[in-house]
């Protein structure tokens, strides 16, 4: 059976896959193209179609997730605009660095190793810190993002960055005050890495906003998503100029992810912040393993390792999204749970 010229089984599969990705995207502010593009490649789509359709899907999902986070008061537009400016400049410089390495013939190896080390390193750092906090140091799920933060909730590196009072100073959501130049420096550094590695950068920006700028995790997720609306929109537009975006892939994926993103975004207000960090860290660690397996498969010319890598990524996505849903249900069942935000529209 076909609907709009697409097999019904494919429509159902894409919609279900979209639901899973949307949940993770709404919860973490990352993971879209990280999951979609490799899956489309394994399904036999052309690389340009896989990348372009992945980007267009990320753009659509980020619009939905950002709107939901806005409803929950978790988007700092001022911070988002500054991050876009600094990141764009950083990406350009990162790309130049990549071209320079390409001219030396070492880009492939350096980027692969840097990607795995960075992904694994951030994953390990976030997980270790969240587990060390043992629930006492984190911001609770019902923290008021407009109210002042407890100084103990701000990571040490962020406190150090906030201590440089170079005017003009900016007050951000969560009562955080930080120099505009420090925000631009953090944005530039994240953009540099993102341009150098050729990735969207959600997995770099979200922890950078929390650990370096010091905004609460839900605001870091919401603001990161706001930035992805622009980067995903521009990226998919550029690919669409060549006709590489396949709407038959994007439309059903988006139909599923729209629901998933709402659930994921609402879950950030329900699930304890330390749990968010643990899930994020585990996701990155498994992602690093999957990327390493895929790269090794390329070096020793074993295409089967591409499928193994995809199974690891999909397994991680399924595991972490199930854990998010389970934790949300558990929190809702506790008498003190704050449930107002899930229906705040």
């Amino acid at each position, binding site marked *: 059976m076909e609907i709009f010229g697409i097999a019904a089984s494919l429509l159902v599969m894409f919609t279900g896959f979209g639901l899973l990705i949307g949940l993770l995207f709404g919860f973490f502010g990352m993971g879209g193209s990280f999951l979609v593009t490799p899956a489309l490649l394994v399904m036999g789509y052309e690389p340009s179609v896989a990348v372009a359709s992945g980007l267009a899907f990320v753009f659509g999902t980020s619009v939905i997730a950002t709107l*939901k986070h806005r409803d929950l008061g978790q988007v700092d537009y001022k911070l988002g605009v500054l991050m876009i400016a600094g990141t764009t400049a950083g990406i350009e410089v990162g790309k130049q660095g990549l071209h320079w390495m390409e001219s030396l013939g070492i880009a492939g190896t350096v980027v692969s190793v840097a990607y795995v080390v960075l992904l694994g390193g951030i994953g390990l750092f976030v997980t270790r810190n969240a587990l060390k906090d043992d629930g006492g140091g984190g911001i609770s799920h019902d923290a008021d993002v407009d109210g002042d933060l407890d100084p103990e909730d701000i990571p040490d590196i962020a406190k150090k960055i906030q201590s440089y009072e170079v005017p003009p100073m900016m007050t951000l959501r969560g009562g955080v005050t930080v120099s505009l130049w420090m925000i631009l420096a953090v944005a530039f550094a994240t953009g540099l890495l993102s341009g150098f590695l050729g990735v969207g950068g959600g997995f770099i920006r979200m922890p950078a906003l929390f650990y370096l700028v010091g905004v609460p995790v839900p605001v870091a997720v919401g603001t990161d998503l706001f930035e992805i609306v622009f980067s995903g929109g521009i990226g998919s537009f550029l690919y669409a100029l060549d006709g590489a975006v396949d709407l038959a892939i994007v439309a059903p994926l988006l139909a599923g992810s729209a629901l998933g993103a709402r659930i994921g975004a609402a879950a950030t207000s329900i699930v304890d912040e330390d749990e968010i960090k643990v899930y994020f860290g585990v996701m990155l660690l498994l992602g690093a393993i999957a990327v390493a397996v895929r790269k090794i498969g390329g070096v020793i010319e074993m295409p089967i390792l591409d499928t193994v890598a995809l199974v690891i990524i999909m397994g991680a996505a399924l595991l972490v999204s199930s854990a998010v849903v389970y934790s949300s249900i558990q929190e809702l069942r506790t008498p003190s749970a704050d449930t107002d935000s899930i229906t705040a529209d």
Partner: protein
Amino acid sequence: MIGVESLGGWGQAATVIGIVLLEAIVLYVGYGALEKLVGSKLIAAIRGDQ
């Protein structure tokens, strides 16, 4: 799928991005209405309230 291939370059790109954006907004509003309709009942059911 819906004939955007006949538009060239910028027109095609703008139409594709416009369709994705429109679908995203329609889905956001649609699922939002659904959430308002059944959200509180679903949460009450999860919490075991009657």
